[in-house]
Structure formats: C-alpha cells, structure tokens
C-alpha cells in the first residue's frame, strides 16, 4: 500500500524505455502485417480475391525473414543485446527461431490457399490469425522476461485456438478448437502460477536478473523456486505435448483443418521449445540444472515411448502423425535435456528440420484428405503410388526423413540430438531414443508400404494437387534433402546461434 502511495506522490517521470525499432522489426512486420491485412479488408469495398490474402501473408513473412538477416549480422558482429528495457533479447537463437516461424507461416499459407479454395471457405481471418499467432511465437522466442514469455504464449495460443475451430462445417474442427482452448487455458494457468512462484523465489521476472540472482545467491529453501520450475514445466510441457500432458494433441491435430495442424506442428512447437530452452537451459541451466534434469529425463522417456508406441497402433494417418510428433517432441526434449551448447544447437537444428518434415507431411495429408478434409484413413492411401506417383514419392521422402534415414534432414536432426545427449551423460536415454526411433520407423514405413503395395478397394482416386500445395510440398522436400545432404550451412548457423541472456543496459 505504501508503494502505491509513493508512486502517486512521485511526480518525476517513470523511466520509459528506448525503443530500438530495428531490433524488433521482424516481430513488428508480422504483427503490423496481420493488423494491416485486417484493416485493408475492412476498408476496401467488395471481396478481395482469395489469393490476395495468401500473397500478402507470404510477402509479410518473407519481409520478416529479410529483416532477420541484418539483425543476424549485427548479432554476429557485436554480440547479443537486450532491447526494450530488457524485455526482449536479440541473439542468434531467437533470430533463427524467428526465421523458422516465418518459414512455417509461408508453408502454411501456401497450404491454406489451396485448402480454402477446395473447402469453399474464405476470408482473410485465417491469415490474420496466423500472422498474429506467428508474432506471438516470435515474442516468445525473443522474450527475456517471464511475463513477456506468457504474453507471447497467449497471443500465439489464442489465435491458434480460433484457427483450430475455423472450419465451420466440420464438427470435429469445432471440437478440436474447444478442447484446445479449455485445456490450453488450464495449462496457461499452470505456467502463470509457475511464473508467480519463481518471482516469489527470485524477486524478478526478468530472466537475466533471475540468472544473476541465482548465480550470486544460495537459496537454502528452494521450495518456491522448485515449485515454480515444476509448474512452468507443466505449462510448457502442455504446449509442446510432453507426456503426460499430451493427450489433447491427437484429437486437436486430427480435428483441426490440416493446414492449421501443419502450422501448429511447426510454428507453435518451435516457439514453445524456444521459450522452454531459454528458461530452463539458459536461465536455470547454470545453477539449477541438476534439479530439473532428472524430471525432464523422466518426461523425455515417457514422451519418446508413448509417442512411438501409440503411433503404430493408429489407422488414421493424421492421428499417426500427431503421435509421431509427440515422439519427435521427445527427441527435441533430449536436446534440451543436454543443457549444453551442443544441445542448444541440436535443438535448433531439429526444430528447423522438423518444420520442413512436418509441414510437408501435413501438406500431403491435406491433399489426400480431399474435399471435407476427412479422408485420412490408412486405406485412403492405398494405391497412391499408382494414382499419384509424385505425391507418393514426396510423402515417402518426408516419412523416411521423419524416420531418420541417412541423407535426409531427419537423420542428422536425430543424430545431433543424440550426440548432445550422450555428451551430457545421457547415453542410456540416447539408446532408448534410438529404440523408439526404430519402433516409429515401422509406422512410417507402414504408410509407405500402404501407398506402394496395397490394392485400393475399388477405383483408386486421384486427389487433385493444387499449385500452391504442390509448391509447399516441393519446398519441403527440397528443404529436407538439402539439409540432409549438405547440412554444413544449417549446422554452422545452429552452432553460431547460441541462446544467451544479456543483462539490461547493454
């Protein structure tokens, strides 16, 4: 109460932060792009053609990527810096995640264009929400403060809840949106509570200050801090679908419109993992690593095993991919668990590679789903190699990459993560992860076998491949193969993009 009176009494200015506009350019571009698109469609008379929104979105995302490049140079030249009074941090890690999110926006927008046309849905709202959500993701990835992390998470999530329910005529889409919303709100509460406890324990929500505080102070009574860590882990764990906080994922992935699923699997995962890594590894890693590592190790085991084993028992391909994404989350968690520079780089590499794999796979699913987005059963893939050999080949490459076959991005992604885990002494977990990779490989190859060797019942159908979806798939396959064959550039970037925290005032 006295504090409040003091503020009222003070007449001098509250220090207002300098805004380094260039440093937050990518985020601003995404957010303004979304708002502007909404304004344009409100102001312009008559309906704009559907492709306009997609082209707009892709241009905005591309512009954001372009804005990342000079910032990357700046960070490489003069080191990381904090901006907006320490609310955000500008380092290689956040920039790479930003670019990844933008790439996933581009891919999802391409899919969405084809999808909306086919489903006879329209409207700029899909794209607006996606851009806003991406902006939230970028906020999360660049956040240097727990409150900012939370704000980013909410911007990201609220938009995605709506997106999940956007397919008006599909009941399952509504259901997915509702489930995701209710459970998401639930998990947000956990995160918020964790943030509050952490604040109670350390006296700050600023990550740099927390890190500094923990480095200087020995906390003899760590209940608050550990409680905070645990609750935040639940909140983040929900977003990235770590077992046992995963059970929304299959339903939501299956029910959501497929391009939205692609967006969730890529952008949302990347942003949430970026925040998780920054909080746990970068902030709490140096001092409290030994406290959370056993916990995360246990969750990793569960995530890997449950994801792999439940995936093989599915017959719905979209659901299969949802479970397989849980398994992938387990692998990324392995990189987080390593809590080392190599682990950071491996996590980043995995997220980038997975963006291409997942977006491409869901692109194929979207196309095969045909009008109504309902043909996702394994039997709908029978004979695809003959009716659509190109599509079958694309899917095969993407699935093999997810399975981790050499010369594809998936192999190296898994490899780096495993290597990082082993370096940090988690050899047993790496071996277990490999076992689950073998199990889930069975599932991927089951799809391939169905496409190539199963007789279709009745006339094999030829799903139409719209140009935009084809372009997205092409980009993904090229991405997967280029990363797999010449991984040098990406792994160099990942190694340079270390996650760092910078104290305020630099």
């Amino acid at each position, binding site marked *: 109460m006295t504090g409040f009176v003091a503020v009222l009494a003070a007449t001098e200015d509250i220090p207002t932060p300098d805004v380094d506009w260039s440093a937050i350019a990518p985020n601003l571009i995404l957010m303004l792009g979304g708002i502007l698109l909404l304004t344009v469609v409100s102001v312009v008379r008559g309906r704009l053609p559907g492709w306009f929104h997609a082209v707009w979105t892709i241009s905005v995302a591309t512009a954001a990527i372009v804005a990342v490049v000079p910032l990357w140079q700046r960070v490489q030249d003069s080191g990381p810096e904090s901006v907006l009074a320490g609310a955000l941090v500008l380092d290689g890690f956040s920039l790479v995640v930003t670019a990844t999110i933008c790439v996933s926006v581009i891919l999802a927008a391409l899919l969405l264009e084809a999808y909306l046309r086919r489903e006879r849905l329209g409207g700029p709202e899909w794209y607006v929400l996606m851009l806003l959500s991406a902006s939230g993701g970028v906020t999360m990835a660049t956040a240097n403060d727990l409150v900012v992390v939370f704000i980013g998470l909410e911007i990201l999530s609220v938009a995605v809840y709506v997106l999940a329910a956007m397919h008006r005529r599909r009941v399952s889409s509504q259901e997915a949106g509702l489930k995701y919303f209710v459970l998401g709100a639930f998990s947000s509460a956990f995160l918020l509570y964790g943030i509050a406890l952490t604040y109670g324990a350390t006296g700050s929500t600023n990550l740099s200050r927390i890190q500094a505080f923990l480095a200087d102070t020995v906390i003899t009574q760590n*209940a608050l801090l550990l409680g905070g860590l645990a609750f935040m882990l639940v909140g983040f764990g929900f977003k990235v679908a770590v077992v046992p906080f995963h*059970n929304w994922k299959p339903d939501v992935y299956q029910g959501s419109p497929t391009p939205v699923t692609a967006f969730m699997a890529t952008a949302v995962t990347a942003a949430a993992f970026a925040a998780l890594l920054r909080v746990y590894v970068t902030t709490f890693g140096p001092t409290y690593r030994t406290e959370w590592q056993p916990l995360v190790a246990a969750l990793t085991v569960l995530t890997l095993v*449950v994801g792999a084993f*439940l995936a093989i*028992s599915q017959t719905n391909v979209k659901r299969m991919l949802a479970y397989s994404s849980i398994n992938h989350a387990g692998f990324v968690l392995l990189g987080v668990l390593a809590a080392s520079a190599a682990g950071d780089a491996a996590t980043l590499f995995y997220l980038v590679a997975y963006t291409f794999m997942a977006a491409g796979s869901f692109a194929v699913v979207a196309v095969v789903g045909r009008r109504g987005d309902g043909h996702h059963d394994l039997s709908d893939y029978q004979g695809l190699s003959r009716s659509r050999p190109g599509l079958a080949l694309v899917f095969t490459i993407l699935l093999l990459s997810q399975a981790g076959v050499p010369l594809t991005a998936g192999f190296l992604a898994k490899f780096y993560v495993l290597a990082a885990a082993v370096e940090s002494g988690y050899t047993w977990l790496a071996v277990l992860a490999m076992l689950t990779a073998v199990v889930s490989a069975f599932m991927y190859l089951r799809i391939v076998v169905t496409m190539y060797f199963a007789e279709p019942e009745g006339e094999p159908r030829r799903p139409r491949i719209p140009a935009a979806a084809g372009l997205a798939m092409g980009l993904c396959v090229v991405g997967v193969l280029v990363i797999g064959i010449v991984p040098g550039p990406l*792994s160099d970037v990942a190694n340079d993009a270390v996650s760092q925290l910078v104290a305020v005032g630099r």
Partner: protein
Amino acid sequence: MDAIWLIPALPVAGFLLLVVAGRKLGDPAAGWVATLAVAGSFVVSAAVFLHLLGLPAEERNVTVTLWQWLPAGSFQVSFGLFFDQLSGVMCLFITGIGALIHLYAVGYMKGDPHYSRFFVYLNLFVASMLLLVLGDNLLMTFLGWEGVGACSYLLISFWFTDPANASAGKKAFVTNRIGDLGFMLATFLLFVSLGTVNYTEINAAAPKLAGVTATAVALLFFLAATGKSAQLPLFVWLPDAMAGPTPVSALIHAATMVTSGVFLLTRLSGVMAEAGWANGLIAWVGVLTALVAAGAGVAQNDIKKVLAYSTVSQLGFMFLAVGTQNYVGAIFHMITHAFFKALLFLGAGAVIYSMAHEQDMRRYGNLRKYLPVTFVTMGIGWLAISGIPPFSGFWSKDEVLAGAFNAGPAGPVLWFLGITAAVLTAFYMTRLMIMTFFGGAEHWRTDAAESLPEGGADEDAELSVAGHDTGHGAHSDDAGHDHHHLTPDHTPREAPVTMLLPLVVLAGLAVVGGLMNLPFSHRLENLAIWIEPVLAGEHELPGAAVLWVLAILATAGAVLGVWFSYRVYQQHKVAPEKVEKPVLAHAWYIDETYAKVVGGPGEASFDAVAEFDQKVVDGAVNGVGSGTRWIGRALRPLQPGFVRSYALGVAVGSVLVLAFVVTRMSL
C-alpha cells in the same frame, strides 16, 4: 585415380535416367541402359583395380572425399569413398556379376508391364550396394545398408498384386529392421568409445577398445549381419524372398546383398580381433545355420526354395570362416559362391522360363534333352557347390573348413558339423539336378499340378509364400503371356541368348574361380596375399599333411552325398519320403513358431499397447475417481470423459511432477 566416384555414380545416373525416361525407353532399351551403366561401373572398377595392382601393398588404397557431410564440431563425417584391396574385390564382383544379371534380366523380364521400373530398382540396388562397400565410414555403409534393404523389399514385392509377395516383402522388412537396430547401436557405441566412425581410424584404434565394448560392438554388428545375411535366428525371410523375380534372387538374395554382413565383419576385422568370445559365437551360429538350412534344403520341391536354403547354408559357411577369423576364406567363399550361386539361380530361372513359370520340381524331369545349354552350365554350378575338385566351390569350402579345423579346441567339432552340412549340400543339389534334368519321365506330361500333394512349407500360415505358383500368377496375367498353365503338351525351349550368355560366362568363372587362391604354395594364394594387408586377427591354416587329409575327406563326403542322392532319386533304391521328412520340409518349423509367437502373444501385446491410451491412461484417471469416491459424491461424474478427463490427465501429471519436486525440496 579419383575416378572411383564413377563406380557408384554410373548406376545412380542409370537410375535417374530410368526414373525420368524409363517408360519412354521401354522394353528392351531401358534394360540395356541399366546394363550399360553397371557394365561401365565394372570397367572403372577393373581399371582402378589394375592400377592398384601396380602399387606396393601398403599404398593400395584410394580415398576420395566427395564432400564433408557432417562438418565441424566434435563429430566429422565425410562423404568419402574408400577403394582398397577389400572393397576393390567387392566392387569387381558386384559390378561384374551385376552386369551379367542385368543382361540376363533384359531377356527374363521381357514383356513385363513394369519393365522399366524393374531396372530402376535394380540400378538403385547396385548403386546402394556399391555405396555400402565403398563407404569410408560406418554411416556411409549404413546408408548403403538401408538402401539395399529398401531395394530388396521393393523387388521382393515387385509383383505386389499377389498378396503373398507383398507379405514376403514385409517379412523381409521386419526381420531386417531387427538387424538394423544392431547396426545403429553398434555404430553409436563405436562412436562413443572411439570418437570416429571412419573404418581406417576404427581399425587403427581398435586395440584401445575395452574388451567388453569390443565384444558388444561385435555382437551388435553380428545381429545386423544375421538380419541382412539370413543367419539363425533371422533367416526366415530369405526363402520367402524368392517371391521376387529370379534375377533379383540371383543378384540380391544370393550373390551380393546377403553377403554384406560378411563384408561388414571383415571390414571391421580390427574390432573383431578384440571381440573375444563373440567370434566363437559367430562361428557356431554360422555352422549351425549351415547345417539347419542344408537340412531344410533336402525336402523342398520349389526349385528356387532349394537354392534359397542352400544360400542360407553357404552364408553359414562364410560366417563360420569369419568367426574363426579366417577372413580370406570368407571372402574367397563369398566370391566363388557368388559365381556358382548366381549361375544356379540364373539357370533355375532359365528352366522356370522355359517351363511356363512352373517352379515345382516334381513337374520337371528329363529336361536335359530340351535345354542342353542350361543343363551343362547348371551342371557346372552343381559340381562347384557340391565341392567336387577342381571346381571353384571345392577350393573355397575346403579353405573355410580347414580354417575351422584349426580354430582352437572346438575346431574339429566345427569342422565335422561343417562337413556334414557339405555332404547334405551335395545331396540336395544332386536331387535338384536329377529331378530337373534326369529321371526319364517328363512329369509335366503326366502329373497335373492339382494332383500333387502340397509339399513342404508351402501350405503354412499366411506369413509364408504359397509355394509352387510363387510370383507367376500375377506376373503372367499382367504380361499377357499365355504361360500361366503348364500344359501336358508343352515343349520346353531354350531361353534367349541374352539369358544364356551370362550362364556361360558364370559357368566359366565357376570352373576357374578356385585359381584365385590355391593352397599348394603361398605364392599361389593370390587372394590371401592381396587382402591380408587390410585384415587384422590371427589365423593360420593347418599344415600341408593335415590339409591334404581334410581335402580328401571333404571330397569323399561330397561324393558320398552325390552317390546317396543318386541312389534315392535316380535308381529309386530308397523311397524319397524316408529322406524328405516333414520337419525338414517345414524348415524345422522355425518360421511357424515365429508366426505363432508374433501372431499370438506378440499381437496380443501389440493390441494391449493400442488400447493403452484409451483404457489404461483413462482407466488410471477413472481409478483416481473411483478410489476417491468415499470422499463424497462430488467426484462421481468422472466418466471416461473427454475434455475433463484430459484435464484430469494434465492435473495428475502435474501432481506427479510436483511430487518429484517435493522430494528435492529443502525448506
């Protein structure tokens, strides 16, 4: 000599060309393109080989790093090719035999609706196989290893309209996955303990490995090898793999791919030298496989299945050699086996071709009259595999057995089991020759297919391949050939010259193959002199006197097998039923046992996993509900709900997380 990149690149180019333009090229141009690509690869291999021949032993290797695959960091892997004495020999016989089999397939696959696709797969296979042997590190080999596996499944299921064939492909896939797991784990273990996956560095650093690690690595690689090279207990896929077209059986499932396990262990001889008892295990598994498979071969009626079990058995000999650290013997037998087994398969293919795709030997007979070239060439193959001097099989098998005899105290036992398998080999191969080419009666004129009792393992569960009509139904239907039924008035005709030419060449090689490595004096052991510089491990053959005795005994055994078979099948002195026990026909019921386990408890546990999420997880959630019912009725509505049940799942998870945290708290 940087041109070695051309060796795998040529088949890759052929593959790409056929993918793009295969359908336009059509039949037979697509086949010729594929053949030329492999032949070109052979020419390059031969040129490099000759170049190396002129160099002193320690300089006989070429490394070409195409690009740095995994750059920088703690772990670097180059996309490098390594052509040395061992991989050079492998390249020569892979491309050489590969080219011949491609040539053969040009004729064999004529008229198939997926003609060009067949060659696409075949070229891709050769490229992968070359990558497997030429890779300078384990990851490259793994790449090839996976590649040949994939091609193998694709080719087994080539006529996939037949469900049996597709299931055979799946079976090959599953058993191989078990092996691949071994490969991955072993690679990882080696990387963790030595920090490298490069062969040269591994073999150099191997003595520094802890004994346990080396043993574990060796066992894991052996697990990989048992999958790929069809050893006990994972051999069951190979006989079913005969569902594929015959050239595939010859190239992949006899000459090249199945030997890659032997190659891998030989390549890593440095590690094997440290592996202790793992070597003994390998030798025993090898010799038992040889024996078990030879026994199964005795009672098969499908000509290709006889050869398939024979391949498993011969691979067993190679592992016997590897296990006794007799790598020269293993490679020697691998090469001669490639000659005579490819020859036998291609010969069998020629017989099948001229018999309207009938594969049941009980409907053959007296074919030497109609197919003289096939008869003579297959006869040479028969003598070679039976171990009759001076044909190539005799020399290599003798080298393997002699090496085993000298391998420690258990050596004579290994030798005895091996020689028993060799006698059985001579027996069933003679049986095959007599049933096919002799016997006086021309059975297809008298016995209708339906009247024959279903033989052997043909009738077993859905996992196995239906025997006598394997592959031909869909094939001939699609091709529009009218050789679907072998009619009584059928007159067998010799296959076209593209098919006979490879037979003749291979027959020549099967005769003179032994010259590579004659045991009479060390100067004549060309192969040993050539390869030994890249091998580790102690091994020596017995002295000359013992060698002679063993050779004479081996020859006597072979002659015995042939003679006994002659008594049974030509002179009918003994009823065949006395020899062809059902247990043999069913290959010791190993396959059925697997099918039962996989189909019974295995499937049940799989279903249990499937139900896990729905029943167990939700059940636990509900269990919490029912367990807390006594508190009050408030928690009653916890039905297997939807959102609320998920939310409770999250809550229970959080409680678990917190419970863990509480254990670490200090207040």
